[in-house]
C-alpha cells in the first residue's frame, strides 16, 4: 500500500502544479485585461493619469495572489489523483484500494494486492503532462504591451484630466489661502469698528467665502483661473479696505488690520510669483513684446515684472506709469500711475504714447492726449487680466487721455461703498479707453482701469448668480458674456 500511496502523492503534486499554473495564468490574464480596460477607458474618459496607472496596475498585481488562492482552492486530493491514475487503464483499482485501505477483509486484501501489482507493472503509463496555458500567457503579454502603449498615447481626455487635476490641486491651495485670509479677518477686534466698517468687513468676508466656494467648485483650470482672478481682485480690494479701516483705530486693531493686509499682499505677491514661475515663457513673451516696441522698451524687461505686478489693477497702472516715468521723465509721476497720467495731463503736451511719449513730453508738443502708457505697457495690461500672459502683448491696460471725440460711459457702483465715476469705453481689441472731460489735478472722479471695471462687474454678476438674483436660465448667458470680456 505504501507504494500506491507514494505513487498517488507523486501524481497529485504534479496535477496540483498544473492546476496552480493554469489558475495563476488565467487570473493574471483577467487582471491584465482589466488593466487594459481601465487604460482604454482613460482614452475617452478624463481620469487623472496617476489614478489610471494605479487602477491599471492593481488588477494584474492582485490577480497573482488571487490566482494562487484559486489554485490552492482547486487543488486535488489523493482520491482525484487515484481516479486520474485509474484513467490510464487501471479500471478503478487504485481508487478502490485507496478507499478501502482501512479494511482487512480477504476480498479487500486481494483487491489491494491486485491494484499494487498492476501499478508496479504498468505505472509507467501514468503521466501528467506539463500544462502551461500558453495562449492565455500570450494574451497576457499582448494585453500588457497594448496597455502600456495606450497609457502612453496622448489623448484629449488625458489632457483634460491633467487640467482637472492641476485645477484641483491649485484650487485646494487657494482654498487654504482664502481660509487663512478669512481667519485673519475674523481675528480683527470689531469693537472699534463702526457699523459701516463692520458691514464692509462682513461683506469682504462674505466675498472671500464666495471665492472659497468658487475654488471648491473649480473643475478645470479655466474655472480655477476665473476664480483666481476674482480672488486676486478681492485681495487687492481687501488690502485697500483694510488699509483704510486702519486709520484712527487703536494700535492693536491697527496691528490686526495690518496683519490681515499683509496676508492679502503676501498672497497676492505669492500668486504673482507662482504665475511668473509657471509661466516662464510668458515672462519671456512679455520681454519680447516689449522689446518689439522700441529700444527703450528694452528696459521693459523689468517692466515685464511690473506687468506681473500688474495683476492687480492699480498696480498695473503703476507699471504702466513706471514707463511713463521713463518716458516722460516725469520723476515723481513715474511713481504713480495716476500722477503719471496727471503729469501728462498737466503737461498738456504731446501724446502720451509709449514709444513716443517721452519725446513728445519733452518737446511739449502734442495735443495733450496722454496715451503714454501705451504699448509699452501692453504686456502689463495683459498681466492685468491676471494671467500668466502677463507682459505678453495685447495691452488692455493702455490709457488714453481724453479725446473729446470718444464716447464715454459712466458707471456708478457701490461695491466699494465709494461712488466712483468711471468713464471709458470698451473696445473689441480688449483695450479700454477711458477719458475725462476735465484733465489736470482737479479732474473729477477716480480713474479706474478697464479690467478693474470688468472684474467688478463680473464679480457682482457672479455674486448675483450665486445668490439667485437672476433667472437660472440667464446664468450661462451672463457667465458667457463676462467670460468673453475677459478674453
Amino acid at each position, binding site marked *: 500500500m505504501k507504494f500506491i500511496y507514494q505513487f498517488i502523492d507523486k501524481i497529485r503534486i504534479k496535477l496540483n502544479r498544473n492546476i496552480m499554473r493554469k489558475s495563476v495564468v488565467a487570473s493574471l490574464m483577467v487582471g491584465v485585461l482589466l488593466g487594459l480596460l481601465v487604460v482604454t477607458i482613460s482614452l475617452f474618459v478624463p481620469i487623472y493619469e496617476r489614478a489610471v496607472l494605479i487602477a491599471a496596475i492593481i488588477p494584474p498585481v492582485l490577480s497573482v495572489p488571487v490566482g494562487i488562492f484559486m489554485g490552492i482552492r482547486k487543488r486535488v486530493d489523493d482520491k482525484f489523483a487515484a481516479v486520474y491514475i485509474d484513467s490510464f487503464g487501471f*479500471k478503478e483499482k487504485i481508487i478502490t484500494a485507496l*478507499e*478501502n485501505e482501512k*479494511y482487512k477483509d*480477504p476480498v479487500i486484501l486481494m483487491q489491494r494486492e491486485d491494484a499494487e*501489482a498492476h501499478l508496479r507493472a504498468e505505472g509507467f503509463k501514468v503521466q501528467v503532462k506539463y500544462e502551461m496555458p500558453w495562449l492565455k500567457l500570450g494574451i497576457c503579454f499582448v494585453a500588457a504591451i497594448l496597455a502600456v502603449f495606450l497609457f502612453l498615447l496622448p489623448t484629449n481626455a488625458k489632457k483634460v484630466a491633467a487640467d482637472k487635476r492641476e485645477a484641483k490641486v491649485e484650487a485646494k491651495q487657494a482654498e487654504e489661502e482664502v481660509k487663512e485670509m478669512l481667519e485673519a479677518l475674523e481675528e480683527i477686534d470689531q469693537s472699534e469698528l463702526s457699523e459701516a466698517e463692520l458691514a464692509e468687513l462682513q461683506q469682504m468676508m462674505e466675498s472671500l467665502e464666495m471665492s472659497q466656494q468658487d475654488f471648491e467648485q473649480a473643475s478645470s483650470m479655466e474655472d480655477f483661473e476665473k476664480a483666481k482672478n476674482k480672488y486676486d481682485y478681492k485681495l487687492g480690494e481687501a488690502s485697500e479696505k483694510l488699509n483704510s479701516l486702519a486709520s484712527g483705530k487703536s494700535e492693536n486693531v491697527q496691528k490686526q488690520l495690518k496683519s490681515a493686509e499683509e496676508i492679502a499682499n503676501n498672497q497676492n505677491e505669492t500668486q504673482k510669483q507662482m504665475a511668473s514661475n509657471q509661466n516662464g515663457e510668458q515672462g519671456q513673451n512679455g520681454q519680447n513684446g516689449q522689446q518689439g516696441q522700441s529700444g527703450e522698451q528694452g528696459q521693459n524687461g523689468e517692466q515685464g515684472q511690473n506687468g506681473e505686478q500688474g495683476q492687480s489693477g492699480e498696480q498695473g497702472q503703476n507699471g504702466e506709469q513706471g514707463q511713463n516715468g521713463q518716458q516722460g521723465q516725469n520723476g515723481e509721476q513715474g511713481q504713480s500711475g495716476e500722477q503719471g497720467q496727471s503729469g501728462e495731463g498737466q503737461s498738456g503736451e504731446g501724446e502720451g504714447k509709449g514709444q513716443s511719449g517721452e519725446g513728445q513730453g519733452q518737446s511739449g508738443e502734442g495735443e495733450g492726449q496722454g496715451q503714454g502708457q501705451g504699448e509699452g505697457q501692453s504686456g502689463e495690461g495683459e498681466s492685468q487680466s491676471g494671467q500668466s500672459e502677463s507682459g505678453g502683448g495685447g495691452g488692455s491696460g493702455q490709457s488714453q487721455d481724453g479725446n473729446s471725440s470718444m464716447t464715454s460711459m459712466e458707471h456708478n457702483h457701490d461695491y466699494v461703498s465709494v461712488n466712483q465715476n468711471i468713464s471709458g469705453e470698451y473696445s473689441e481689441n480688449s483695450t479700454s479707453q477711458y477719458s475725462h472731460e476735465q484733465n489736470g489735478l482737479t479732474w473729477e472722479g477716480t480713474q479706474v482701469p478697464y479690467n478693474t471695471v470688468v472684474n467688478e462687474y463680473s464679480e457682482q454678476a457672479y455674486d448675483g448668480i450665486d445668490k439667485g438674483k437672476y433667472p437660472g436660465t440667464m446664468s450661462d448667458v451672463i457667465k458667457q458674456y463676462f467670460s468673453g470680456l475677459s478674453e
Partner: protein
Amino acid sequence: MAGITFDAIKMEDSTVDYNQAIGVINQVRTEIHKEIIGQEKTVESLLMALLTGGNVLLEGMPGLGKTRLVQTISHVFEMSFKRIQFTPDLMPADITGTNIMVRNEQGSSFKFEAGPIFANVVLADEINRATPKTQSALLEAMQEHTVTVGDVTYALPDPFFVIATQNPIEQEGTYPLPEAQLDRFAMKLLVEYPTKEELAAIVNLTEGFGVQPAQPVITPQLLVEIRQMIQQIPIAEPVMDRALTLVMNTHAENKYIREGASPRAAQYIVRCAKARSFMMGRLNVAFEDIDYVAPAVLRHRIITSFDAVAEGVTPDQIIAQL
C-alpha cells in the same frame, strides 16, 4: 478475461476460492456457447443477473433462441427448470399451485399441489399474453421468493429465477406488464437477430452432426456461494456516484421521460456491475461495469413520454444521453 490469479483466499463457509469461482464461471460460459451461438452480450447479462439473483425479461422476435438459452442455462447450472406458456386464460393458480381435496382412509383433506413456479428456473414464455391478474401472481415469487396460497406461505427453492420472454411486435391481445411487475426484473435484455455467420453456425449446430451438448458445471449451491462472494466486491465512491447519478438523471427534466427509475434500479446497477467485474476477473467495480449494465437495468424502468413515442426515441437512446 484478465487472467489474473488471486491468492487462494476462501470466504468463510465457502467451498471454493475466488480463482476457482472465476474458473467455474468461465466454464459456464464455455458450456452455454456450445448450444447458443452468438448472443454474447445477452448471455453475459443473463449470467450477471443469475449471479446477483435477479430476474430477467427477454424481449426478442420468435425463433431467436430465447427458450433454448434459458433451458441451456438451467441445464449448465443443474437447476430445475419449468416453463409456463402464458395465455389469456391462464389463471394464477395455474402458476402458483392450488389446494386440492384428497380422500384417504381418514376422510377428505386438502393438499397443496405446487404449481410450475416451484423450480429454480421458471421460464414465463410470452408473459404479456396473460392477464394482469395472472401476471401479478408472479410478484411475490419474484420479490420474496415465496408463494402464498390460502393462509399458507410456501418458500420457493433457492436459487430462484424468473426469466420471462415477450414479443415486441405482436401487441394485439397482449397485456403490457404493469410498472410494479417490470420493476421486479433486474434486467430487460434485447435478443438481437444473429449475423449471417452466427446464423450459419446455428444451422450447422442444429442440423449438423457431432453436436456437443452442454454439460452441467456448477451446482445451485455453488451459485449461491459465488453470489455471496460477489456481494463483497468493493465499489469505490466515484464509481458508486456514477450509478446514482445515472438513476437520478432519469428524474431530471427531460421531455422524453415521463417517469424515472426507482431506487431498485440503483441497487441492481451496483449488483450487476459487481457481478460483471467478477466475471471480468476483477475484484473491484469499474466505471465501465456501470456503463455496461446500466442500459439493461434502466430501459424497462424508464416510462417514456408521448414525445419520445411520437419521435420514435427509444429508452436506450434516452439512457445514452443521461
